[in-house]
């Protein structure tokens, strides 16, 4: 298939491009960027992108696809379908599946399922430790060879500092980064952010210290051995400051946050709203301001969703019993535009950097840019066009979103994955 995307505002931060121009796609690859090519008589699909932004497809490096083992929540087909509706053309999926993705066989299974049924590219993340039990290193080298792009015990923080050190040392041989879910388990016991809101509802508060203690530890370990670490889903002012200082000292640390940590505060939990229950928990306005500042000054490298689909029964229950997490793939771009670009925190180019360019670099995958010869993964959207979230219409199996009724911007109109149009005028093609 040949595709010409005409007259769009092409934003390609990796190559320093932000201008109205055309992109020509051939054989799944971008073959030209520019207006002067002679395409007379060539049979092709033409997309008129006038007034719209043409950007590299988003890369979400923190997603739970739930397959294998928890297909009642989500599977690779539905998860990647949700992804493309959100303009996300590549996802890195977390290993807390059943069985745990802690060996070559599961990595291979996920990749082959994705090739078979996936709408977006899927990059598996392997476990740090066997069974995510935090005791023995998983077969990191074999997983890396099978295609794992990072390792993480996400959801099961590595409590043993020596194991974390070994993971950083060992994974570097295979060029995969350690992604750390920072949580001190004992300090982290609770239902929502600690403070007056939790107290007023009789919910158990989770101290910011639970996250920051572990973030500080990982930074110290990385600094001591010259290792590299990526801190997952930071939510507090203190974490931003720890990472800011560490980067100034030259520590090899990168980090990510999620839209909910700049779009919502703990008050979303009022009324025992289980769709606002997550880990780390929603914080305060002060933390939201610090997260935005961290995004603005470059301390925070990436925006990821931590897309965590759950079955309705797992949320339609007592707050204390409800599972942590929300779906996010279909709302991340809209929230980024609304809360960051429209508020002047980031330029559109910077938003694309955090949602496509930087995650690709951190994972070492050849995505997130629009240069000639690159994979044709592209999202096209109008950043001024409003749309309203209706959680019953989400394409994920999980409807656990706190954004029902939110007015967002820039719903993807065209999404191209590997040179194929997957979303055409907002509709799924296959």
């Amino acid at each position, binding site marked *: 298939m040949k595709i010409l995307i005409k007259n769009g505002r092409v934003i390609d931060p990796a190559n320093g491009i932000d201008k109205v121009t055309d992109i020509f796609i051939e054989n799944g690859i971008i073959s030209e960027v520019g207006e002067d090519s002679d395409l007379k008589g060539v049979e092709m699909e033409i997309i008129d992108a006038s007034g719209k932004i043409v950007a590299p497809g988003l890369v979400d490096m923190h997603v739970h696809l739930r397959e294998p083992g928890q297909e009642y929540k989500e599977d690779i087909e539905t998860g990647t379908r949700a992804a493309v509706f959100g303009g996300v053309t590549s996802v890195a999926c977390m290993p807390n599946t059943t069985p745990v993705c802690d060996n070559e066989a599961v990595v291979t299974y996920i990749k082959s399922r994705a090739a078979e049924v996936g709408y977006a590219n899927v990059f598996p993340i392997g476990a740090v430790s066997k069974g995510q039990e935090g005791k023995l290193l998983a077969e990191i080298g074999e997983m890396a060879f099978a295609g794992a792009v990072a390792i993480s015990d996400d959801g099961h923080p590595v409590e043993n500092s020596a194991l974390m050190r070994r993971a950083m040392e060992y994974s570097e041989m295979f060029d995969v980064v350690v992604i750390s879910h920072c949580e001190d388990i004992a300090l982290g016991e609770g239902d929502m952010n600690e403070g*007056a809101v*939790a*107290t*007023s509802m009789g919910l158990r*508060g989770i101290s910011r210290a639970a996250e920051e203690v572990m973030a500080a530890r990982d930074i110290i370990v990385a600094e001591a051995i010259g290792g590299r670490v990526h801190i997952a889903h930071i939510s507090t002012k203190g974490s931003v400051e720890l990472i800011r200082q560490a980067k100034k000292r030259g520590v090899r640390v990168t980090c990510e946050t999620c839209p909910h940590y700049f779009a919502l505060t703990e008050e979303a939990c009022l*009324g025992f709203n289980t769709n606002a229950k997550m880990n780390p928990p929603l914080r305060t306005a002060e933390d939201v301001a610090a997260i935005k500042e961290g995004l603005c000054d470059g301390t925070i490298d990436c925006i990821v969703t931590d897309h965590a689909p759950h079955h309705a029964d797992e949320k339609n229950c*007592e707050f204390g019993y409800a599972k942590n997490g929300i779906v996010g793939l279909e709302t991340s771009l809209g929230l980024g535009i609304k809360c960051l670009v429209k508020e002047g925190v980031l330029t559109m180019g910077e938003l694309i950097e955090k949602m496509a360019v930087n995650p690709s670099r951190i994972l070492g995958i050849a995505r997130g840019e629009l240069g000639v010869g690159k994979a044709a993964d592209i999202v096209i959207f109008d950043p001024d066009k409003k749309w309203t979230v209706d959680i019953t219409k989400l394409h994920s199996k999980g409807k656990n979103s706190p954004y029902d009724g939110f007015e967002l911007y820039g719903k993807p109109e065209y999404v191209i994955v590997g040179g194929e149009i997957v979303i055409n005028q907002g509709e799924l093609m296959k």
Partner: protein
Amino acid sequence: MKHDLLGLKELNADQIRNILDEAADMKRVVLSKEKKIHNLQGKTVVNLFYENSTRTRLSFELAAKYMSANAANISSSGSSVAKGETLADTAETINAMGTDILVMRHNMSGAPHILSKLVDASVVNAGDGMDEHPTQALLDMLTMIEHKGHIEGLKVAIIGDIYHSRVVRSNIYGLTKLGAEVSVGGPRTLMPMGIDEMGVQVFDNVHEALVDADIVMGLRIQLERQKKGLFPSIREYFRFFGVDESRLKLAKPDAIVMHPGPVNRGVELSTAVIDGARSVITQQVTSGVAVRMAVMDMLVHGGF
């Protein structure tokens, strides 16, 4: 539109006063020889208790029966709840049986709020996790009024495990709305962050909390809190926070002593204080039946 009592957080001062006024009338029924009125004739009250309870469950059951309602009890052990039925499914089942009032006790904060959305019956929160226990606070306030004549201006000192207490949260909401001054006291490890923002004074020194109090309320200390490492020992707790006769002298000379029960003798309060002349703990129990009668009566007859 149906009416619920989920907490005192949701009520305004007038609504609370209305309940207390009706409860004062109901108390006369409770104390009379013929304990039978017909306000809930033909209505059905179901007590749905996910936690063990003696006094609260019995109190609701008697309150319903004194008003001629049909009353039934479900406790979590030996029921479908123990078999793993979800709250939503239990709610649907009870709803299908034609219940008018569902009284719920649950170990999780917010459970009655969820239940309320699932059933047609009026829901009464009989204690949810660490959130609220509104009828306890109402009966506390009724008892205070009986002894002091009013709530406004009273100094109320609540001592004990503030962190885990639903009684203290409901009392703070109710008492501050009616103009009382509330202070809370206890070990810092049992004091939730941000409690001061609920409009109370916070002390980790029991003496300061008790000074000039009109009302001294002890809260139950549960032994499993000690096992979780929240305080070193019962002995040390009583030494620093237990209310005995000498500490009670810091309060006003006519101060009364309250406790939601069940009491650990020699832990929250000394035996001499519990059995002393200032203790109104038994009267609280009687007030409880009256308050629950008033609440249920008002819920099925237009609300508060």
